[in-house]
């Protein structure tokens, strides 16, 4: 059974394990000795001030980049992992429906038009299914991106500040669908800049500060440690 060396936390039921991960950009240290375990049915918040390395950590967790040092162990296949970030992966010259059908093919999912329409309906875009995504607002593009993620039915969901620039309704929809994904058994890792708002959704939190893992544990422990102090992020 693997041991998370930073926290002394034992588990064999995990989808992703990072052990003493250190990353440099050229010679500049981004963070060092980050260790964590991501388990199914959990929501983990990644927090910290600007430049703490949250997005870099997400890129390492997703497998986009390899860390300079340390171990990254993935147990989840690529077709069961989804990513939702500032970038929507939306092709602006294609309709919402065509965008969804394209990503379904890339992930080897067989989806007919009716199923695609159902997904678009879930995110409130059914009426815009045949409109070019280039005419969509930021919020609509992000909703389309959310439909792509829901279509994948992921076991492991990475969210890099997906709520940025969204109106309250879209943010609410996003939180609702993410909660449903976690309840459905997915592990969710979520970069958050609105800790007070998102903390109640999460089970665990990793806080990056001063180029290191300042905190990793349950949100309850984190809240009690920071009670009355407020969060700097």
């Amino acid at each position, binding site marked *: 059974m693997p041991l998370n060396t930073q926290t002394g936390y034992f588990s064999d039921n995990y989808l992703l394990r990072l052990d003493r991960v250190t990353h440099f950009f050229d010679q500049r240290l981004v963070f060092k000795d980050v260790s964590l375990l991501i388990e199914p049915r959990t929501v983990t918040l990644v927090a910290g001030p600007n430049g703490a390395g949250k997005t870099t950590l997400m890129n390492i967790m997703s*497998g986009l980049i390899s860390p300079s040092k340390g171990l990254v162990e993935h147990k989840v296949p690529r077709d069961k*992992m989804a990513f939702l970030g500032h970038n929507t992966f939306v092709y602006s*010259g294609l309709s919402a429906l065509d965008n969804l059908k394209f990503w379904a093919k*890339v*992930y*080897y999912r067989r989806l007919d038009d009716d199923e695609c329409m159902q997904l678009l309906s879930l995110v409130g875009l059914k009426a815009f299914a045949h409109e070019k995504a280039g005419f969509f607002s930021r919020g609509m593009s992000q909703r389309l991106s959310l439909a792509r993620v829901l279509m994948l039915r992921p076991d492991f969901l990475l969210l890099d500040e997906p709520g940025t620039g969204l109106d309250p309704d879209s943010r609410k929809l996003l939180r609702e669908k993410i909660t449903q994904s976690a309840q459905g058994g997915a592990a969710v890792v979520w970069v958050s800049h609105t800790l007070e708002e998102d903390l109640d959704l999460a089970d665990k939190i990793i806080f990056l500060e001063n180029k290191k893992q300042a905190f990793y544990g349950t949100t309850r422990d984190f809240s009690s440690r920071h009670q009355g102090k407020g969060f700097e992020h």
Partner: protein
Amino acid sequence: MTSKDLKLIFSDGSGIIQPILLGLILVFVFSLSTPIGEEVSAQAAASIFWLATSFALILVFNTLYSIEETNQARTGLLLSPMPLQHVWISKAFTGLILLLLAQLFFFPAIIVFLGQENVADWWALLGVILLVDWGLVAVGSLLGAVSQGHASRDSLLSVVIFPLLIPLLLAGIRMGAHLLGGADDESLSSWAGIAFSFGAVFTGAAIILFPFVYNEY
């Protein structure tokens, strides 16, 4: 991916109109270099045809790979379970379709503006065009990926691609000159062999190297 790329290219049109226009202007300008009534040699005509094709190649692959940069769809492809070689193959195939489309305009222009009417064998000419185009798109699809993602690399494609293409273009020019009614060339099969080897080598290299090139993040 090919149907998606073609849909995007034809929906705004600029991705194919620019290379066609550039090639046609090139053919037209070269036609002005000879006195009225005088015929351009078959070798010069073949050179102009492949030069126009090379410029079209650069524009086509810059456009094809820039599609994935909008909203960082490339990241989505990198995270997907799809082998990255599929991206290379799809882009190469789309590039081939667009290049052939551009050549559909270049060839009549060569006949009209450069007076090349004595085509020896149309089927052989089509074979030569396809053979040389295979090598062109194999290199174009590999290097097109290198030039994307960084503004400083925008000019890289044209800088790197032309020296690499020299043997293939020479083969295309010699075979083209022969088929446009130029002098008999006994070494024609050797040039065809060079073009075939070029295509095969770069196809093999691209299949191995493409994931490393495209995965740079």
